[in-house]
């Protein structure tokens, strides 16, 4: 490659073109960068709370039924098994994030969107869900239910 000094005529034009091109490129970047960052949503203040006290009382959840509760901005499902045990899972189906529900006819947690079945340990046992539901710890303190993320 021939190195051209700033003295010759063609290189002056080349230099001006380079300057214009770079400036234009810089301008485009200076416009696109803020627009790009603007479009990326700010990280939501995800609830850092590791546990939540439910407004549901233990006796409100009959055996073989379930209720949806709020865990921060996520939905959880509180299940009382036919044996009477309380369990809690994330209510977002591991498949495509629909909110699951309890099927008292088959004793499964069930997602209506794509017919995904989970057993009462949250394991995906039928249909498209690729993973089990995230499980939470349930503690009953008097007539309060406290749900917390497992350590």
């Amino acid at each position, binding site marked *: 490659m021939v190195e051209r000094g700033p003295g010759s005529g063609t290189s002056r034009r080349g230099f001006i073109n380079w300057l214009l091109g770079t400036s234009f490129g810089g301008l485009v970047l200076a416009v696109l960068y803020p627009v790009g960052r603007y479009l*990326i949503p700010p990280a939501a203040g995800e609830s850092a709370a590791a546990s939540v006290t439910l407004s549901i009382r233990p006796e409100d959840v009959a055996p073989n039924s379930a209720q949806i509760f709020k865990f921060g901005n996520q939905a959880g499902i509180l299940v009382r098994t036919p044996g009477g045990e309380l369990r809690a899972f994330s209510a977002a189906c591991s498949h495509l*994030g629909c*909110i699951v529900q309890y099927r008292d006819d088959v004793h499964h947690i069930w997602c*209506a*969107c794509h017919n995904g079945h989970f057993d009462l340990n949250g394991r995906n046992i039928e249909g498209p869900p690729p993973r089990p539901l995230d499980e939470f710890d349930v503690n009953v303190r008097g007539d309060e239910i406290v749900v917390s993320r497992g350590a």
Partner: protein
Amino acid sequence: MTTFKQRMGSVWEWLDDRLGLRAIGSIAEKKEVPVHRHTVWYYLGGMTLFLFLVQVVTGILLLFYYRPSAEDAFESVQFLMAEVEFGWLIRSIHAWSANLMIFTAFLHMFSVAFLRAYRRPREVTWISGVVLLGLAMGFGFTGYLLPWNELAYFATRVGTQIMEAVPLVGGFMATVLRGGSDVSGATLTRFYAIHVAVLPMVATFLLGLHLFMVQKHGMSVPPDVEREGGAKRSMRFFPNFLLRDLVGWLIALAILAALAAYFPAHLGEKADPFAPAPIGIKPEWYFMFMFQTLKYLPAHILWFEGEVVGIIGFTLAGLLLLLVPFLEKRSTRGEPSRLFTWIVVAAIVYIFVLTYLGYTADPTV
């Protein structure tokens, strides 16, 4: 004393001097439409255009009452449907015209594929058309959420979650599209901006390009008609073809009015992010074949999640569709291409069968 006609004549002269109206008129006069046994398919593009214009008009009217927020959207549509005079009509026509537009756009595309109208020199026309169909589906996907009802909420949750399965960039793309990690009020305002500003701008530009290309190259005569030779018949675009177009548009308007009156658009229940997904959530019918395909894929195919395989498959299919003029060269050379005809037939059969299953298969088994 100058007559009214003379006066209008001089106004026309004045404008013509400045705007060159005569040149436009002579273009319209010269434009010819070939007449042969496949001429009927030429009307589908114009029909799609008409339905698009209906969307623009009714869409603008809906903006007068719609309030784009998670708190207000459902109530504003409810108010529009129940209180505003003819509100139900405007919204129902918007919904029906959207569906019919996508239907005619699909028919238009398949007819162009069968009649080989994409062959050289019309590659750009084909590509702009395929992208326009993609935009129409984007209009459908974003518009579906705007009433903020239960079905739309979960359909959007599923739709954006599917995007998350795309390797590497999927999670990022879904977050930007939703304005967060979940479908929320932020998603609604984003979809609103995309639906009423971004997509209309891009679609208008591409539509201009598409129509300009049609004007530049004229209507394509199918190769089998060309091979037969014989006398070439044609009719003038203006007024002969345009008047026939108009008849079709009037029929379409009548059908729209009838559909809107007898099958008005539903609203359903307001979306609740903390309620279980209702049984039988469905995407719009034109997404159904893809949705149903994903249902039949197992959770894992080899070491991929089933969804990922499905998404990659449909992305490849879309890419192949875009590149049809460059992959199917036989018809440009004037040779028949039966294989391509069978591929298109197979695609249509696939879409039909999967759509049928999507509406009839029991969702609870």
